């Protein structure tokens, strides 16, 4: 349904969104690139700004904090994805079953999604994970165990737990919607064909969910890569929970080394792009289906 007229109208109407996003992407990106090749510490007038070539890049990548931070990022993203998808599928399967008060359960399950990250981080950190007064500590003591100092003894696990709690509703609801869209005749046919429940799950339900799982992975990765408040509030990047995002944040804002931080920013952008290309491939393929 395209005429010359409507095509030019389409270009015109797409322009504001495209131009804004292009500006939003390019302007800061160019500035970051520029800074990344300079020595630039705005709070230190004694250090003269100037070009340093790839110095910042070399220093950032050779700093002892770099690789651990990449690793931490991947562990948090991967861990949270794994937990939310596995639990999400199971929970979605359960919620799809006939029961009383399904609507209420759905309201309960969806709730964490509405909680802002700063709140959930604070609540988990203090009210649940505090080694003295936290609810977990009470629970552990009630069973005669020594309370765990969550945020320093199992810091990554704690953060993954918090993040997964926030994103489980999202995964569950998308997967539930997908399960509900499964043609029941397909399942009945497979039942007639004599497929036991487990193979019905693996041969019919799971393939049907693949598109939904792709969407969950895509959207969650976008948000998980930039997890910030949860770390900012809980450990402040200590105990090996410093993600790449957080490391750069520290370089730029805490130690005000903009040049070094910007080089780190470029690395983060490259990492994000590698993951993005990988994801876009999958999603692009799934888009038309």
């Amino acid at each position, binding site marked *: 349904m395209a005429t010359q007229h*409507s095509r030019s109208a389409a270009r015109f109407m797409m322009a504001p969104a495209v131009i804004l*996003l292009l500006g939003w992407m390019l302007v800061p990106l160019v500035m970051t690139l520029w800074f990344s090749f300079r020595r630039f510490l705005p709070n230190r007038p004694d250090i003269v700004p100037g070009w340093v070539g790839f110095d910042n890049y070399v220093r950032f990548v050779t700093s002892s904090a770099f690789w651990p931070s990449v690793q931490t990022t991947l562990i948090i993203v991967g861990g949270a994805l794994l937990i939310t998808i596995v639990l999400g599928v199971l929970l979605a399967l359960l919620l799809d079953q006939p*029961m009383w008060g399904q609507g209420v359960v759905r309201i309960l*399950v969806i709730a964490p999604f*509405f909680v802002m990250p700063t709140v959930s981080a*604070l609540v988990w950190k203090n009210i649940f994970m505090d080694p003295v*007064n936290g*609810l977990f500590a009470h629970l552990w003591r009630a069973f005669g165990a020594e309370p765990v100092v969550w945020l320093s003894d199992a810091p990554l696990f704690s953060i993954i737990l918090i993040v997964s709690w926030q994103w*489980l509703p999202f995964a569950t609801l998308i997967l539930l919607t997908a399960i509900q869209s499964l043609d029941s005749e397909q399942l009945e046919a497979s039942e007639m064909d004599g497929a036991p429940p487990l193979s019905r799950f693996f041969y019919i339900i799971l393939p049907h969910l693949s598109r939904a799982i792709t969407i969950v992975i895509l959207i969650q990765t976008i948000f998980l890569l930039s997890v910030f408040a949860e770390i900012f509030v809980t450990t402040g990047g200590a105990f090996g929970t410093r993600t790449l995002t957080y490391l750069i*944040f520290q370089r730029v804002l805490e130690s005000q080394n903009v040049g070094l931080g910007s080089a780190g920013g470029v690395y983060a952008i490259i990492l994000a792009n590698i993951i993005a290309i990988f994801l876009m491939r999958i999603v692009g393929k799934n888009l038309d289906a």
Partner: protein
Amino acid sequence: MSRAVTTRRKTINTVLAWSIGFLIFFPILWTILTSFKTEAQAINDPPLFLFFDWTLENYAVVQERSDYMRFLWNSVIIAGGSTLIGVMIAIPAAWSMAFVPSKRTKDILLWMLSTKMLPAVGVLYPIYLIFIELGLLDTRIGLVVVIMLINLPIIVWMLYTYFKEIPGEILEAARMDGASLREEIIYVLTPMAVPGIASTILLNFILAWNEAFWTLNLTAAQAAPLTAFIASYSSPEGLFYAKLSAASTMAIAPILILGWFSQKQLVRGLTFGAVK
């Protein structure tokens, strides 16, 4: 599938689902309960579940200490403004992609989504500088713009998927009936897409409401929304559980209530139109 299910089976499902639902909801419930306790009761061992002296004292203290209404108002303006402006920019763009698709449409869409993957921290300092230069630091307008931009790809994407479900023939009919492009969008497309637009607005309002990176880094006193309000309790006041809980409850209550009331549209919106 209408099939007889044994009551036993249904009971097991119900018990299981309710237990898990309760478990997932528990941190929120516990926070709300704690907000009504005294500080001593809040850290009582064993923990007090329902039988304690209910008090509103914490809310009074929190309100006195920090001007809750101002933060709330900032949150409403920032989340609402960024969402509405975003939708107004996104509707024409999504129209173009859904009804006049070209070979590049999919690429543009994926590119837009990929800007969302750009790590915010990578461009934090440039934005910071630009904000200082333009006098936008710690202003609501500045945050409205930034949050609109970070959510724009998602708004476009969602509207695109909703628009695609509308048969092109209806828009062609409007065209044959003499509607201009503007009239076609205002009188035909938008009213037909109301449920989709509503879910889009809702979801993005929530995302904007909960956005913490930019709101924490680009505001100080004037434009700070509820994310900053609660961050100010991180320490050492965090040790006052009852007050922390009261502040948390105040920060999440508006969105929690909004979310529950519009659960249906939201679930639709949550799937980004990608899952039917």
